[in-house]
């Protein structure tokens, strides 16, 4: 384990965030991630950076949302602010102890907290887009995430490491090679004006003309493996049903189905958690529009685990995010929300690019484009 953690730390510090001498590097994650935090700390020192590591303590978020008043919920801690406005590198580890810890919390308060952080989110995404700031979110195996995936911790670890290409002799080389594959798909998509996604209870068209497709190969997420853009805000028409439960900040909605007209959600239903869904999309104007559309392309991620970081990368899926677009894609949607929802196309799903079938049963067709 510790050898693998050292290897993982080297990927995150050396490749994903490419830490340079003098960089300030903020490392954060839940308690279970401290073994990796130590490796990251060491790896950052070796790269000449200045690491600072801090624990994410979910209990305080629970207390805040249960007991805090508006001013307290709106408060963004000084260290977080500074990092987003002035830091060089941010490495966040996702290793939850209890993925449902916010289940009892009022969604309106949660939405308020998200909204208060929006200006800083926006600022860091802009700084990221201009190259001033580098960040990565890395999954870390815990009992809680293994439990959500319905497997043992050992099994979940294996799955996660495989998905992060850590079983390769040289994981960085593996990610670079994978990046070249993404490039082939990306250069095809760059020429497309309109996509149509067809699947079970799903027939959605979206305009992508003039938008950039970002190739995501281990720089900002680990595991990684997707290609995404910000669709033209007013272009979405039709219906999409998401196969997997849609989770955000410890809460979830299952069986989510959305109908778009003129780019806006006009109907949103869920088999479970519909109130939560409604609360989230009512957060602000942008929360009703899509900020991202993406293809999941990691061949080593094959099954749903309940961890978004993995699920949105499942080879053979697409995902759509309600809310904020990612700077650099050309997307212009502003919102405090960014909620990814995944639709599995591996059984009978199709994607048409400007009318031509380019993707079927979860894979791009040879010679597509």
């Amino acid at each position, binding site marked *: 384990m510790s050898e693998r953690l050292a290897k993982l730390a080297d990927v995150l510090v050396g490749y994903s965030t490419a830490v340079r001498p003098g960089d300030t590097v903020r490392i954060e994650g839940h308690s279970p991630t401290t073994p990796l935090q130590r490796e990251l700390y060491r790896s950052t020192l070796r790269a000449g950076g*200045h690491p600072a590591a801090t*624990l994410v303590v979910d209990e305080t978020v629970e207390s805040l949302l249960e007991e805090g008043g508006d001013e307290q919920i709106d408060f963004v801690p000084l260290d977080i602010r500074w990092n987003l406005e002035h830091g060089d590198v941010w490495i966040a580890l996702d290793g939850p102890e209890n993925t449902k810890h916010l289940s009892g919390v009022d969604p309106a308060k949660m939405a308020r907290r998200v909204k208060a952080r929006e200006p800083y989110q926006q600022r860091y995404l802009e700084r990221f887009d201009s190259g001033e700031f580098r960040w990565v979110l890395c999954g870390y195996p815990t009992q809680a995430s293994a439990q959500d995936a319905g497997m043992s911790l050992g099994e979940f670890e294996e799955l996660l490491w495989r998905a992060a290409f850590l079983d390769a002799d040289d994981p960085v080389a593996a990610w670079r090679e994978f990046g070249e594959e993404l490039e082939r798909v990306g250069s095809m998509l760059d020429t497309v004006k309109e996509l149509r996604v067809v699947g079970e209870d799903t027939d959605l068209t979206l305009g992508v003309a003039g938008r950039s497709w970002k190739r995501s190969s281990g720089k900002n997420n680990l595991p990684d493996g997707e290609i995404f853009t910000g669709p033209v805000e007013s272009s979405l028409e039709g219906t999409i049903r998401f196969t997997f439960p849609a989770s955000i900040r410890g809460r979830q909605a299952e069986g989510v189905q959305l109908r778009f007209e003129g780019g806006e959600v006009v109907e949103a239903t869920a088999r479970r958690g519909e109130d939560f869904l409604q609360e989230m999309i009512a957060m602000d104007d942008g929360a009703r529009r899509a900020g991202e559309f993406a293809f999941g392309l990691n061949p080593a991620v094959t099954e749903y685990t309940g961890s978004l970081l993995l699920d949105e990368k499942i080879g053979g899926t697409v995902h759509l995010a309600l809310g904020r677009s990612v700077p650099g894609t050309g997307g212009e949607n502003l919102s405090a929300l960014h909620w990814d929802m995944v639709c599995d196309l591996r059984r009978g799903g199709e994607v048409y690019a400007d009318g031509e079938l380019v993707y079927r049963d979860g894979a791009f067709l040879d010679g597509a484009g």
Partner: protein
Amino acid sequence: MRDPRVEKLADLLSGYSLGLRDGQVFRIDGEESTLPLVTALYRSGLQRGALPYLQVRPTGLEEILLHEGSEEQLSHISEGETLQSEQLDAWATIWSSANTRALTRVDPERRRIHLAAHYRMVNRRWERISAGELAWCGTLFPTQAHAQDAEMSLADYEDFVFGACHVNDDEDPIEHWEALSAELTARARELDGARELRIVGPDTDLRIRVEGRPWIPSDGRHNMPDGEIFTSPVETGTEGEIYFAFPSIFQGQEVEDVRLRFRDGRVVHAEASTGEDYLRALIATDEGAAVLGEVAFGLNYEIDRFTRDILFDEKIGGTMHVALGGGFDEAGTQNKSDLHWDLICDLRQEGEVYADGELVWKAGSFIAEPAAQRV
């Protein structure tokens, strides 16, 4: 399971020590092992309307930095850290580690470089505290490592720590500390009139000039537990000999049976039964390290034993301590040093203290109630 004493300690810290108010930006620092108190303090801060946030460090980072960091990395303080220390209204530091000796084998020079940077931050913090801009309190959360140092079980050690803080079930902690504060303040005002103290005990006869230096009560505002009164001696006015029966610890390293001889305020002879080289190296840290920056009476009688943690040891009821190195501005010190090393002298059995020739303390306690309280 939540220990109600932890919640009570948190309320004491936020309500009494820090006096948290609406809208105050409040940072809580600690290591991973302090989480139960950190989270209780966070909640307590919220309940008082403050804006709390955490800085909880994973265990084991400092040794990586000290073993592997470059000099530049060792002395680095991020702009973000500096900025926060300028903007905070309230700050709690929860000391505790999972291993109190993790840094024992670190190269002392590298340690010195790192500490010097750390003390720059600490000094700035004290400037803001003195100016009334910042409320700060340091406390300890009981862990196995600290229990081990104290040679106690964790359960016994918890009783000891919470007892010293007066947060047991049947106690009203704020009432206790307010009463103690009044008593210590009265005692301090009384000592303000003294020109010279003479401490007499086993192998000890030391005269310390304190004329013109105000005595300061430590009443639980900046440390919890607390219970001492201290001042900074006149730099040239220490004469004689003192023996420290308790081990003297600095940064986890122990020196035993320390004996110091002072002339004109400076250490002219230092010996120890173990760790003598370390003792001499510390005294040679800089000019000010051979001069006393502090003299104090330990007055927390719940603390009745030596536990190898200065937060407690310096307050053992019936002891006195002096510190080599930097003194306190609010006590009128002129002594500057990167060192501040508290050494504890046990006066509980046969100690005597004279103030300007008059016996004021015998066998571990002041002879009379402070004047202000006698009426």
